[in-house]
C-alpha cells in the first residue's frame, strides 16, 4: 500500500482533524481489506493508541467500541447471549480466524460492503452507531443516507435480544463471500427480515415485516406469503456469483425456513 505518512493519533480529536485535512487521508481500521484497494494514502491515521476496544452492557444495550476485533466480539459471552448466538453465527462465517483477529467492527460497518455478513444481522437487531462528530444514528439511517460525512465511528450499540434470530449465509465454499444473506427474527420491535448480498447492501424487507406484524396469528400460510413478499419488494440482481432468479429463489426459501425456525413451527 502506498502510504506517505503514518500517524498514531494521540486523541480522537486529532484523528478527526487530520481526517478532514485531505480526502487522501484515511483511518486505519483492521486493515483486512486494505489489499483490495490500490489507492494511495497521504496520511494513514492509526487509532491504536486510543481506548477504542471493549464490550460492555449498559441499559439493555451491548456497547462495542469500534476498534474491537470481530474475533473479540464473536467470542464474547455478552455477544453470544444475543439472539441465540446470531452475531457469533454470522461473524464466525467471515473468512477465517486470522482475518477476524485484525478486522474491526468499525471497519466492517463503515465500509458498507454489499457482501457484509454482519450488517443484515445488525439491521434485524436494534443497532445504533455513535460517530465522533455526528453523534448517534441508527444503523438503518446510516446505511440509507450520506448524512454522516467523513467521521470516525466510535461505538456500536446493539439492543439485547433474548429470542432466537435466524441467520443464513448462502455461499460456495466456507471462505466465500455470500451469494445471499438472510437474517430473520422476532425482536421487541416485531418481525424483522433483512436481506444482504443481493448483491447490494443489506436492506430490511419493510412491507413483508409490516404484513407479518399486522397478522393476528402467523402460521405456515402467512409465512409462505411473507416470503413471497420479500422477493417482490427487495431488489435483487445478477453478478458473477449468481443470477437474479436464483437469488430470488434462495430468498423465498430461506425467509420461509427462517420464520419457521424463529417461531418454532
Amino acid at each position, binding site marked *: 500500500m502506498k502510504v506517505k505518512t503514518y500517524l498514531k493519533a494521540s486523541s480522537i480529536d486529532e484523528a478527526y482533524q487530520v481526517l478532514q485535512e485531505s480526502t487522501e487521508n484515511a483511518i486505519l481500521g483492521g486493515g483486512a481489506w486494505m489489499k483490495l484497494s490500490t489507492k494511495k494514502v497521504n496520511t494513514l491515521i492509526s487509532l491504536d493508541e486510543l481506548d477504542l476496544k471493549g464490550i460492555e452492557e449498559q441499559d439493555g444495550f451491548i456497547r462495542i467500541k469500534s476498534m474491537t476485533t470481530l474475533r473479540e466480539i464473536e467470542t464474547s459471552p455478552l455477544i453470544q447471549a444475543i439472539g441465540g448466538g446470531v452475531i457469533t453465527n454470522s461473524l464466525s462465517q467471515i473468512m477465517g480466524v486470522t482475518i477476524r483477529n485484525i478486522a474491526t467492527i468499525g471497519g466492517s460497518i463503515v465500509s458498507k460492503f454489499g457482501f457484509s455478513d454482519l450488517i443484515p444481522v445488525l439491521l434485524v437487531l436494534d443497532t445504533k452507531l455513535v460517530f465522533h462528530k455526528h453523534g448517534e444514528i441508527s444503523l438503518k439511517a446510516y446505511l440509507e443516507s450520506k448524512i454522516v460525512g467523513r467521521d470516525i465511528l466510535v461505538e456500536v450499540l446493539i439492543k439485547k435480544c433474548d429470542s432466537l434470530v435466524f441467520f443464513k449465509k448462502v455461499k460456495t*465454499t466456507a471462505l466465500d463471500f455470500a451469494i445471499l444473506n438472510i437474517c430473520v427474527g422476532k425482536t421487541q420491535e416485531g418481525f424483522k427480515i433483512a436481506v444482504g448480498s443481493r448483491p447490494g447492501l443489506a436492506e430490511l424487507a419493510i412491507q413483508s415485516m409490516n404484513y407479518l406484524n399486522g397478522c393476528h396469528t402467523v402460521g405456515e400460510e402467512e409465512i409462505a406469503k411473507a416470503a413471497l413478499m420479500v422477493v417482490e419488494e427487495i431488489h435483487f440482481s445478477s453478478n458473477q456469483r449468481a443470477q437474479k432468479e436464483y437469488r430470488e429463489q434462495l430468498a423465498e426459501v430461506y425467509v420461509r*425456513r427462517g420464520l419457521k425456525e424463529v417461531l418454532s413451527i
Partner: protein
Amino acid sequence: MKTINQSFPSVDGKGIMMGRVAFTDDYALQNSLIVKILRSPHPYAKIKNIDASKALALYGVECVLTHKDFPRIPFTRAGQGYPEPSPHDKFILDEYVRYIGDEVAVVAAVSNDICEEALSLIEVEYEVLEPVLNFETALDSKNILHPEPEIHEMFPIGFDPKRNLAASYHMHIGDVEKSLKECDVVVEQSFFTQAQQHTALEPHTVNAQMDYQDRLVLYSSTQTPFHVRRILSQTLGIPLSKIRVIKPRVGGGFGGKQALHGEMFVSYITYKTKKPSKIVFTRKEVFESSYTRHPMRLDIKLGADKDGTLKAIDCYVLSDTGAYGEHALTVFMVAGSKVLPLYNKVDSVRFHGHVVYTNHTPAGAFRGYGAIQGNYALESAVDMLCHKLHMDPIEFRQKNMMKENETSPIFAIMGEGTEGTAMNMESCKLDYCVSRGKELIGWDSIYPHKNVSKEKIRSVGMAIAMQGSGIPYIDMGSAIIKLNDDGFYNLLIGATDIGQGSDTILAQIAAEELMTSLDKVIVYSSDTDLTPFDTGAYASSTTFISGNAVLKAARKMKGLLIEEAAKVLKCEEADINFDGFNFKNKKNESEINLSQLSNRLTYNEDQKQLVADSSYVGHKSPPPFMAGFIEILIDRETGEIEIENYVSVVDCGTPLNPKLAQGQVEGGVVQGIGMALYENVVITSKGKNITSDFLNYKVPTRMEIKKLVTEFAESYESSGPFGAKSVGEIGIDTPPAALANAIENALGVRMTDLPMTPEKIMRALKAKEKRQ
C-alpha cells in the same frame, strides 16, 4: 519387505515444517534484480510501438526488454520430451499479444517499487484486433491467432494455424456409425468441462545468478528442470554446458509448473548483465498468466444392446488450448487414450477432435491431463445409458469394464502424441475396487436416493477410472548410488519431488534393495549438474520409471559391494551372504560389515569409490485403476450440496508408502471435487479473467471435506519396482462423473457442464418440472 509398503514420514517433512530454507525464493540472492512483466490489457492486439525511455530513465532500472531484443526463434514452453509434441508457436516476446495478461515487455530493477513504477512508465501503442473468445467458433474463424511464418510443429500433430488449429487427431476401430445403428439403445450427449487452475500455494518463481565458473545457475519452482535447461539453451543460444538448473522444494505443481514461466526472462537478464535476478509471480499473475486446464466440449455417443452389452463408443473432443499450444495434442489425446480402454470389449470405437486456439490464458498440463475431462463425459454417459436400459450402473460396469489380463486395441494405437504401446493388463483389480467401494459407501442402503427430510435428499453416485505410469519409449529416468565411508549411501536422482514425496519413496526403493534402513539413504534430486537425467514429474512417471531406475541402480550397487567383500574375504562372490550390513563368507564364517568395508575402500586398501548407475525407459505404461464413490446430501429447494463421504478404492500395484500414496489419491479427489462443484475460471465476453484471486476462485476448504475413505487393492505389477504402479493422478479423475451421477440419482436431472453449481442444478430441476 522392510522398507517397502511402509508409511515412513517424508524425508523433508520435518525440515520444512521447522521453516528451514527450502523453496526457490529462499535461495534468491539478496541483491537480486527484481524482474516484472508488463502484461497486455487486450485479448488480441499488435504492438505498434513501445517507448521504454521514461522507464529506462528511472533510477534503479537495469533494463527493459521488448520483442525487438530477441531473435525470432519459436519454441514451446511445454516441459516435454524432445522433440516436443507441442507446436513451437511462442516467441520470447512477440509483437502480437494474444490474451489479457500476455507478455509485452520485461523490466529488471533494483527494487519491487522501482520495478512497478518502471512498468507504469512504459508507453505502448496497440492496434487492437478482434479476439477469438468462443472456442466453439474458433476453428476456421476469420481471425487467426498465429499468422507468423516461423512457427511449426516438431512432427505431424495436425497443426494448422491458418485454421486456428493447434492440433488434431482421429482414430477408429471398427465402424462406429454402423455399430450405433445396430444398437438397441443409444445415448447421445455433449458435455462441457471448464478451465480449472492448479492454485499451488507457492506462486511460480525462479531466480538466476552467475556462479564462479561463469555459468548460469537457476533455482526454479519447476516440474521439469532438464527440459527447462534444454529449452533455455535452444532458445537463448546459450551452450547447454553453461546452464545449471536446480529444483529445490516446490510448493505444489499439479502440472502448473510443467512448462516455463519466468525462466526465460531471468536467464536472459542474468546472462546479459551478469547480475542475479528473480521473478516471483503475484497470485494474480499465476491465475491470469500461467496455465489452466484445457476447457473441452466432449460429444459422446454410446450404443448398447438391451442385455447391457456396450457395443460402440463415439467420442469427439473440441479442446480450447488458449493463446499458445503447450500440451495441446497430448492432453486431448489422453482424454481418449486413458479413458476409453475402460470399456475394452466394445465392437467399435472412434476418438477424434480438434484443439483450437483462442485468446484465453494458455491451457496446459494439469493433473489428470485430459483423463478427468474424458472421464466426466464417458462415465456420465454410461449412467445415462444405464438409465435408458433400466440397468444398475454398477452391474453394467462390472459386465463391460476392463478386467485383469485383458487388453484394449486402443493401447497400441494411441500414445501421447505418437503411436501407442500394446499391453495386457497384468494387474487390474478394477472389479475388486468396484465391489469393495460399493460396500464401503453403503451403496445398497442408499441407491439411488433416500429422503432425509422435506428439504434434503441423500444419494450416491460412482465412476471408474484409469490413468498410466509414464510414457513408454519416451520417458527416461536414471539414478546414481554412491557409497560413503561409514556405510551410508547418496542416492542421486533427476526425479522431481514437487511435494508428492518422490524423494522419500525412491529412497525407500533403494533402501529395500540394499537391505538397509531409510536413514542410510540420503537423497539429492533434480540438479542438472549433479543428478542424472529424468524427464520430470508428470504423466505419473516417477514411481514407475524413476523407481525402476533406482531399483536397477541399487541392484548394481549390491553387486559391486558383494564383489568387493569377496575380495576382502578371499572367496567367490557366490559364497557371500549379505544382509544389508554384514558380509559373511559362508565357507569359513569370516565377516566384514558395511561400515568397515566402506572405510577400507575409502582410506585403507584397494581404495576406490563405488558408484552404481542405471537408467530405465518403460516398455509399457501399466495403468493404475480406481473406483470412486460419492455420498451427498442435496437440498431439493436450493440445490446446495454437502459432500458426506468419498470412497476411493485404488489399484496402484504395491503402494510403496501407503500413507503417501493415500495422500496422492485424496489430494487428487479433492481437486476433482473442486472441479466438479466449486472451481471456475470466468472470462468475460471481453476476454477478461474475473476470477484471478482466491476471493473469487473457490478451491475446497477443510469445511467442505468431511470424510474421505481410501483403500488399496491387493495388487502386484511385475514390471514396476516391487510391484508398484504410479498413483499421482488417478485420484482426480472420478469426482465429476461420480457427483453428476449422484445428482441424477437424487433429483433425476443430468448435469452436463462443470462446475455443477447449486444454481445450475435448480435451473435444470425447474426445466425438468416444466417438461413434466
